[in-house]
Each structure stands twice: as structure tokens, then as C-alpha cells.
């Protein structure tokens, strides 16, 4: 190979041939599959491009514009409805508050997730406690001169992110406690934690949401009501805490016994050992697992539309019933848009999880 001139086009051609022979035409079977798959891929890609771009309708103010063209994408539908998809029925004049909340959230997350920025424990404390409280007052209003907006007017992506963020913020501390409880040497605590975890892991989220929306009002004294959003947050948090507990437990089990022993030998008691020695290491190890739980939670928030809460998917679904926009391609357009938004969020987070996993594998336990 040393003799070949690398810029020689014949050399490049030979390498291209060798590459395709191995990867596309390795055997008769492979060749046939390549040809068939290639044709299929081309037809599908062509179909998608036609549906979404070439034949699609881009201009219009109602379903009229999309009706005569057959089943093609109806983008004006999205343009007209996107505000509802994002904010629900949140009053337009106050939507800047939602934008502010999103922006602060994104900043806080970046602080928490980007590796090189210091002060991670501050970041965690603020994001888990401070931020939710601040955003709650910001968005519900009624004080500091902000107009009151009851949670029943919230909808769309606002609800989805509220549910997911609250769910994670609540389930992380609860999950840690449950995981510690499950590994406890005290039998009552261990049994109670295990039963609690297995209960919520064994039932579908739909039944938990039904429980939260229908049974919870029965459990509380007459006259005390929680609105639906809070009830759903409660259900989602409990459900997610059980899965988080298992993720944390995996991390706890990965810590070598010697760490527990060294801490004991130094005289550190149970809580100090957990807080200063074990949990910092365990939580770092399971960051990928925590992020994956969050991705699952984010997708699961769509289920609240079944109990009548209008999350992002719920708003899209509701607006598909708008007779004004009825056309053969409207439904698919709405769903494709929703799928694209979810995909960007979830794929982004899963790449982050994979990145963290590689980093942790490479560096072992070091910072």
C-alpha cells in the first residue's frame, strides 16, 4: 500500500469497489437484498418527499386549501394552530411568562448537563426545588401584578413539559429514598419499599391516571379539591418514582463493598455514608439510566389526554376534529408534526445519555 499514490483516482476507485463489495454485495443474498431494499428505500423516500414537500399545500387559511389535492401534507393547519399546540388556552398577553419559564428551564438544564460547568450540586438543588416553585408562581400568577391563569387553561407543550419536569423533580428524591429503603437491613422498611415499588411498576400508567383523577378526590376530605393537572402530576410522580428507584438501586449495587466498609471503619454513620460516599458515586453512574427514565416519562405524558387533560398530543388531537380544517391529509400532517417534535426532544436526550455513558465508561469514577 505504501507504493500506491493516495491521490490516484484509480486507487480511490479500487477502495470504493472493495467497500461496496463488502458492505453491499458481500454475497448473492446480500446483493439481492441490497437491490430490493434500495428500490424500497427509494420509493419510500420519494413518497415522503412528495407528501411533505413537493405536493404539499403551504398556503391557506382553512381546510378548503387542502381539500382538492388528495392526501398530502396540509402545513397551513400547523401554522394556524401552533399557538394552541404550545400554550393551550393560555391567554395570549401572558404567554411571555411561559416563554420565560422555558428559557430559564433550558438554561438550568444546560448548567446541569454540560460537563465542564462547575457547581453541579447547586444546579441540582436549584432545579429540583427553586425552579419549580418559582415557575409555579410565575405561571399561575395572581400575585406580583401577574394576571391569574388557572391551570385548567394550560394546555399543549406547556402541560407536557410541566408534567415531565415535575414528574422527574419529584421522582428523583422519592426514588432515592425508595431505593435506600429497598436495600435497608430493617425488614419492615425493606418490605414496605419493595411492595411500593413493585406495585407501581406492575400496573399500567393509564390505571394510575384513572386512580389519580377518579379515586384521589374520594380519598381526600369532602370539599378539598385538587385540579386535574396537579392530580396527574401526583400520579405521574408516584409511577415514575418506582422506576427511578430501580435505576438508583442498580447504581447502589455497583458500588464495591469496600466503599461501605471504609466509611464504616472511619465511623461515618448510615446517613453520612450514603450522603457523602455512596450516593454521589451511585447517582453519577446511573445518569444514563436517569435520562432514559426521563425520556420514557416524557413520552408517557401523552397518556393524560385519556383522562381529559390537554397535553401537546391532546391539543393536536382536539384540533384535528375542527371541521374547518377537515381534509384528507390533515390528520397525518398533525401527527407527523407532533411526532417530529417528540422525536427531536427524545432523540436529543438519548444521545446525551449515550454520550454520558461513554464518558463514564472511559473515565471510571473520576470527575
Amino acid at each position, binding site marked *: 500500500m505504501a507504493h500506491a499514490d493516495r491521490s490516484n483516482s484509480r486507487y480511490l476507485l479500487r477502495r470504493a469497489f472493495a467497500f461496496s463489495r463488502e458492505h453491499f454485495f458481500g454475497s448473492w443474498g446480500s446483493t439481492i437484498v441490497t437491490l430490493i431494499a434500495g428500490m424500497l428505500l427509494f420509493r419510500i423516500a420519494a413518497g415522503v418527499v412528495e407528501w411533505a414537500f413537493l405536493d404539499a399545500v403551504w398556503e391557506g387559511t382553512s381546510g378548503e386549501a387542502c381539500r382538492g389535492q388528495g392526501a398530502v401534507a396540509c402545513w397551513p393547519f400547523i401554522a394556524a394552530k401552533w399557538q394552541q399546540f404550545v400554550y393551550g388556552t393560555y391567554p395570549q398577553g401572558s404567554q411571555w411568562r411561559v416563554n420565560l419559564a422555558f428559557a430559564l428551564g433550558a438554561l438550568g438544564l444546560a448548567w446541569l448537563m454540560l460537563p465542564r460547568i462547575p457547581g453541579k450540586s447547586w444546579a441540582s438543588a436549584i432545579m429540583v426545588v427553586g425552579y419549580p416553585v418559582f415557575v409555579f408562581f410565575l405561571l399561575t400568577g395572581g400575585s406580583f401584578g401577574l394576571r391569574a391563569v388557572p391551570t385548567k387553561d394550560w394546555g399543549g407543550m406547556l402541560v407536557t413539559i410541566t408534567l415531565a419536569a415535575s414528574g422527574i423533580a419529584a421522582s428523583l428524591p422519592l426514588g432515592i429514598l425508595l431505593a435506600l429503603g429497598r436495600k435497608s437491613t430493617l425488614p419492615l422498611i425493606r418490605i414496605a419499599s419493595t411492595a411500593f415499588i413493585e406495585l407501581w411498576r406492575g400496573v399500567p400508567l393509564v390505571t394510575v391516571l384513572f386512580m389519580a383523577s377518579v379515586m384521589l378526590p374520594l380519598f381526600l376530605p369532602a370539599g378539598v379539591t385538587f385540579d386535574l393537572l396537579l392530580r396527574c402530576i401526583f400520579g405521574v410522580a408516584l409511577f415514575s418514582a418506582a422506576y427511578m428507584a430501580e435505576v438508583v438501586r442498580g447504581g447502589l449495587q455497583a458500588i464495591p463493598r469496600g466503599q461501605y466498609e471504609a466509611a464504616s471503619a472511619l465511623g461515618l454513620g448510615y446517613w453520612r455514608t450514603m450522603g457523602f460516599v455512596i450516593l454521589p458515586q451511585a447517582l453519577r453512574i446511573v445518569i444514563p439510566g436517569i435520562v432514559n427514565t426521563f425520556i420514557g416519562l416524557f413520552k408517557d405524558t401523552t397518556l393524560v389526554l385519556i383522562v381529559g387533560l390537554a397535553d401537546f398530543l391532546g391539543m393536536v388531537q382536539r384540533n384535528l376534529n375542527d371541521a374547518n380544517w377537515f381534509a384528507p391529509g390533515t390528520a397525518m400532517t398533525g401527527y407527523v408534526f407532533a411526532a417530529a417534535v417528540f422525536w427531536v426532544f427524545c432523540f436529543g436526550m438519548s444521545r446525551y445519555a449515550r454520550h454520558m455513558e461513554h464518558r463514564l465508561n472511559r473515565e471510571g469514577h*473520576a470527575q
Partner: protein
Amino acid sequence: MARAPIISMEKVSKWFGAFRVLKDVDLTVFEGERHVIVGPSGSGKSTLIRCLNRLEEHQAGRIVIDGIELTGSLRNTDEIRREVGMVFQQFNLFPHLTILQNCTLAPIHVRGMDRSEADALAMQYLERVHIPGQADKYPGQLSGGQQQRAAIARALCMNPKIMLFDEPTSALDPVMTKEVLDVMVELADGGMTMVIVTHEMAFARKIAHRMIFMEEAMVIESAPPDAFFDHPQDPRTKRFLGQILDH
């Protein structure tokens, strides 16, 4: 001499399920003495010293350390662990903390020292084990010998009366072994009470007041080093020494 021993084990036995790992073990250590325990693997040496700070629980017999009896009482156990320091074969440094933080963690949270006091104390001991420059590094950045010396400093920061060593150099290569053994000799010269499990016979001979040989959960022979190495009494001791020293 009518003073009480600082460590007293009387007829201590321990079972793991149906398997007996300690059989009627007696041990008497006076303050300032250094006892070295040797024996084949599985003989119960590690279990014995781990019973001394209740990392393992004995099921029969009595263990009294510095006047406090080791029982199920958590308060006794906590008190004893403050007075007994331990160095492990696998170092067991906390990888997410710097060396300095490793050393100051227990003094701050168990003895209630404030941060500057604890830092000064830690630097003092880190200098004694000859690694003051490593204070702000993480364990993963140190060599094995440096890590073990840091672990010794960490244990010393609690100002213990007794130091336990569980095969401290078994995971180290010969050069690092020497580093650590030198530190242990210095510690011995300072008058520390030490109970050591090791395979390093030359080192043992140099510093031990008493050699203890264990095999199959029992103390077979216990004697001062010269008598132990030159005139072993029990045939099992002779056989062990023959295997170990004939390299």
C-alpha cells in the same frame, strides 16, 4: 504489670452459616504492641481483625477494646470505630473526593472539627506519609503505593489508638510495597498499637512484638518473632514457614 490490655479477645468464634471461620480465638494486645498475624488464605486472619472494628460480628466469646465491649450496641460500635483505624488491601479511597477531602471527611463529620482545623491535620499526616503534594488530586491519579499511603493518612486523621492493617501491600508491586512498609515502620517507631495481617515476613520479623500463626480458623502458635521464626513449636507452623520462606 497490672495494666489492662488495649485489645482483649476471649474464646471468640464466628460462623458463616454452618461454616466455622473462627474457633475459640484468644488475643491479648497491650498498648504500643505490634502483633502480626500470618497464615494460609482462608485461615480466618482477615475475619479476625475485621471483628475488631465490627465489620464482622462474632457469635461467641468476648471482645473488649480500650475498656469498651463489642456487642450489638450501636453506640459502643461507633465509639470503638473512632478509636480504631483500618487500612484495607484494596485501599478503598473514595474516588469522587480529593485526597485531602478523603482525609478530612471523618474528622469533620464524626469528630466535629471545623474545616480549617481538619485541613491542617490532614496536611500534617499527608506529610508524614510523604505525599503532601497529592492533596488536591483524585485517587485515580495516584499510584498504588501513593493511594495506600493516602489511605493510611486518612485512617490516622481520626487519631486512633489502634491501627488495623488487612494485607496492606498484597495489591502492590515490590517497589510500592517498600514505600508502604517504610511508612508502617515509621508509624511503629512512633509507638502506635498495630495489628497487621501480612505475608511480608522480613518486615514482620523487624517490627513485631508477637507473631501469630492461624490455620483453619484457629490460632496455632503465638510467639515473639525470634522464637517464632527460629524455633517454631507446632509442626503446622514449621510446614507453613517452610513453604513461605523457601522461595
